């Protein structure tokens, strides 16, 4: 294949960012093209059908299913309040009365003369989609949603948990090697996104939740700490819907892993800015990585950008993403075109890279990712 390497995660101080904000069902778009929006602007809304409740009226009344229609007090399509009589059956010349009351407010949707079930539909549930970021409505997708465009800083993590939120960034450690501990979290971190270095501990996450922080960004996390935080293990890499107080974004991987200097440096520059973050990760078809967006951020000076249009070339900065050099940053030295035999005896395409300490190592191309600007 043309590119035998992982494209890498974006870490850039200035990018054009587009976010598609789509309803789960067709509905109404509330903003027009060209309108300026902020994260909490509602851009589209719809009603999803209310929850259904099924009640076996035939059983409750002690009648045959085919007869229940005649005992219904409310006909199909009619509204009823919780506790009101939905069906009534009098036997022995009215001496005995059996009733069924509505368990919820709703509309009688179906009366089944086969099963004796009555389906009550609760009122529709409104669903709203907000803009999530500051920006301009670039495109309206009729009845579905909008595309919002902005420019600003954009950082992708490798893995995250927790959904969309916004908060002001605070870097709580001095270096990308530092572990984010409980002691780094302060009461004034309420509503903030806290940045750590090589690792976030379980107690730090807990403290962040207690003070009301909304997000944590760190290089690594210990897998058992993540399980303890979520209350369950993660089997497949689809996250973002967890009911957790703090969205956690990991930039490097599992274990203690120094955050890439570039990522840490950019986050330091972004300190004090309001960020939109999302921990949602999906590593299947339609890859989705967690993200940190600071809309409108203007870097003081343009950073040196690497031309990545050629893919891997000598000089390309990269990160090694598998043992035995996992997590190390390096620079491409040489890209032999022929397949080479590695320690496992597999024949693969490799590259030679210079590590930060000057050592030249051989690595399969599949095990590196370009550090993208």
């Amino acid at each position, binding site marked *: *294949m*043309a590119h035998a390497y*992982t494209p890498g995660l974006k870490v850039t101080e200035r990018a054009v960012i587009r976010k598609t904000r*789509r*309803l*789960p*069902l*067709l509905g109404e778009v509330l903003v027009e093209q060209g309108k300026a929006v902020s994260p909490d602007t509602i851009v589209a809304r719809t009603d999803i*059908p209310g*929850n*259904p*409740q*099924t009640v076996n009226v035939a059983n409750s009344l002690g009648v045959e*299913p085919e007869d229940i229609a005649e005992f219904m007090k409310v006909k199909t399509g009619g509204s009823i309040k919780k506790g009101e009589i939905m069906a009534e059956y009098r036997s022995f010349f009215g001496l005995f009365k059996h009733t069924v009351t509505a368990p919820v407010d709703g509309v009688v*949707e*179906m009366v*089944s003369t*086969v*099963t004796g*079930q009555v*389906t009550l*539909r609760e009122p529709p549930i409104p669903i709203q989609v907000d803009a999530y970021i500051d920006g301009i409505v670039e495109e309206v997708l009729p*009845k*579905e949603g909008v595309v919002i465009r902005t420019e600003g800083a954009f950082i992708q993590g*490798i*893995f995250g948990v927790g959904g969309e939120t916004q908060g002001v960034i605070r870097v709580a450690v001095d270096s990308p090697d530092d572990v984010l501990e409980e002691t780094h979290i302060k009461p004034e971190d309420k509503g903030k996104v806290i940045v750590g270095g090589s690792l976030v501990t379980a107690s730090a996450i807990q403290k962040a939740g207690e003070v009301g922080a909304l997000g944590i960004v760190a290089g690594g996390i*210990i*897998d*058992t700490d993540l399980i303890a935080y979520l209350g369950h*293990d*993660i*089997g*497949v*890499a689809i996250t973002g819907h967890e009911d957790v107080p703090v969205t956690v974004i990991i930039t490097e*991987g*599992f*274990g203690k892993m120094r955050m890439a200097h570039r990522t840490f440096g950019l986050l330091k520059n972004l300190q004090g800015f309001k960020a939109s973050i999302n921990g949602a*990760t999906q*590593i*299947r*078809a*339609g*890859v989705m990585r967690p993200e940190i967006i600071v809309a409108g951020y203007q870097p003081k000076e343009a950073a040196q950008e690497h031309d990545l249009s050629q893919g891997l070339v000598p000089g390309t900065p990269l990160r090694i*993403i*598998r*043992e*035995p050099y*996992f997590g190390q940053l390096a620079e491409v030295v040489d890209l032999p075109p022929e397949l080479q035999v*590695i*320690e*496992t*005896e*597999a024949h*693969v395409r490799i590259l030679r890279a210079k590590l930060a300490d000057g050592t030249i190592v051989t*690595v*399969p191309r*599949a*095990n590196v*990712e370009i550090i993208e600007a």
Partner: protein
Amino acid sequence: MPEEKAALTLDREINSVLATDCGSTTTKAILIERVGDEYRLIVRGEAPTTVEAPFEDVTAGARNAIREVEELTGKTFLDEAGVITPRRPDGSGVDIYMSTSSAGGGLQMMVAGVVKTMTAESAARAALGAGAIVMDVISVDDGRKPHEKIQRIRQLRPDMILLSGGIDGGTITHVVEIAELISAAEPKPRLGIGYNLPVIYAGNKDARPHIKSSLSKKVDLRMTDNLRPVLEREVLGPAREEIHNLFMEHVMAQAPGYNKLMAWTPIPIMPTPGAVGICMQTASKEYDLSVIGVDIGGATTDVFSVFGEYFNRTVSANLGMSYSICNVLLETGVANIMRWIPFDINEGDLRNRIRNKMIRPTTIPQTLDDLIIEQAISREALRLAFIHHKSLAVGLRGVHKQRTIGDTFEQTGSGESYIDMMDLGLLIGSGGVLSHAPRRAQAAMMMLDAFQPEGLTMLAVDSIFMMPQLGILSTVHPKASMQVFDRDCLIKLGSAIAPAGPNGSAKDGDPCVKVELEVDGQKIVEEVPYGSMKLVPLEDGKRAKAIIHPSRQFDVGKGFGHTLETTVTGGVVGLTIDARGRVFNVPEDTSQRNKKLVEWFTAMNLYPAELLKKYAQV
């Protein structure tokens, strides 16, 4: 697939075939041509699949893969309209083009029936055999309360639902009850916002009017023959055909670029696993052997089995080697993975490595330790997927014998398993961890450990995963399909002799099996004690007469202690004699286990000798 389309393609002589499989990450193209009297694979090409943004057009990936075939052959197969068919006098184009697809998540279905182990199970078999991933099975007796079922149906966004229940002329109440739950849930399809979800009704025909009144206003309702017209028979064909039709009409039509791809070929696009299943069935028939096939991917593991007339497929949707690798860890536990690793490793380190593979799924092992860990995980993924398969590859429960027509089978009754490991003749492995193992013996060992075949079994791997293309090809040209399957697709690893037993107690080193071989007129005798393994060189393509004498506590197919006279076949690995017993377990004590693993790995020449010596010293 529709008969008229098959007939249409065979009106002319087929000398060249181009077939693609649009997988979730890679689109693979193969070119097959007639060379003399036989059909052979000429070249293959591959390119990333382009269903997702920014391309959102599957044909872009298909074109790229085919372009690689063009570059390798120096011929032209594409023009602006698509694949050129039939082949032109100037040599451009091919006689026929076809494609399979699992891109964009493949075909995802929910199935429902009245009784979990009867109609719901039949519905699951119909969906799985058609190539679907079954997201959930809903039944009246599944233990969930009605509101929980409704909630679940609402949460899922399948591509379609298959609803069954009741025998023709029987009670309609229960199946209507399930239909009412579906109606209440108002499920929406995964693709195509604003479209109605297709629901296939394949239950008691007397309930059709009620099903219609419950569902027709809310979903795209289709009716087909009852899966269980009578309790003793299962008729899966019509439902599977309807699933394939809807896959084309609805799922494929909604997926980006598929309308264009469909216009390139006169043959309906088939779900990838459905095509692999057809390939396995054709192979079983051709070789006259019982077959088990496994395809272990990044997200899922599919297991296929053909025993006699019985075909079954299961998909373990969350057992895989990258995206779902953490689920393997979750389901089997870290101890079960560590039992296949012959060196000490910190549990936390192992867990973190597995997580890091999940979040960076395209990486490959660079060190031998890492390779051994990955192959240990694969043994567990394969083992769990096979357990899952055995639970579904069973006869109709609680009834007398008999199933019917086509893909339906004669029943053994009472939910007995069809899987008879002693009867298994061919075990085929597919998927990166097996097909791309640096030493072929590693693939053989992973399959032996996970499946534990008994008696005499041929082991093979799919060289480049072209079974989907060969499966769809076999629907229009079985001869070409099987010739390529035999000559270019299968890499034969060699026969494996694995005595079942011991019947009673036996200890390591006790006599287990003696094998007398006659190869090229030369006689070889191998005696392998219980608890050991032996690899006997026997080249690919060579056959040898074998007289296998199990000791009285062991069985190789003729009964305990009875001799089997047979022919064994060589392969790229050789003839394996696996005298570890069946079912075997590795020792629980770590040092004993490590010693035993090193002994087996050494016998099978699995890894470099110096490395194994290092482990042995530790």
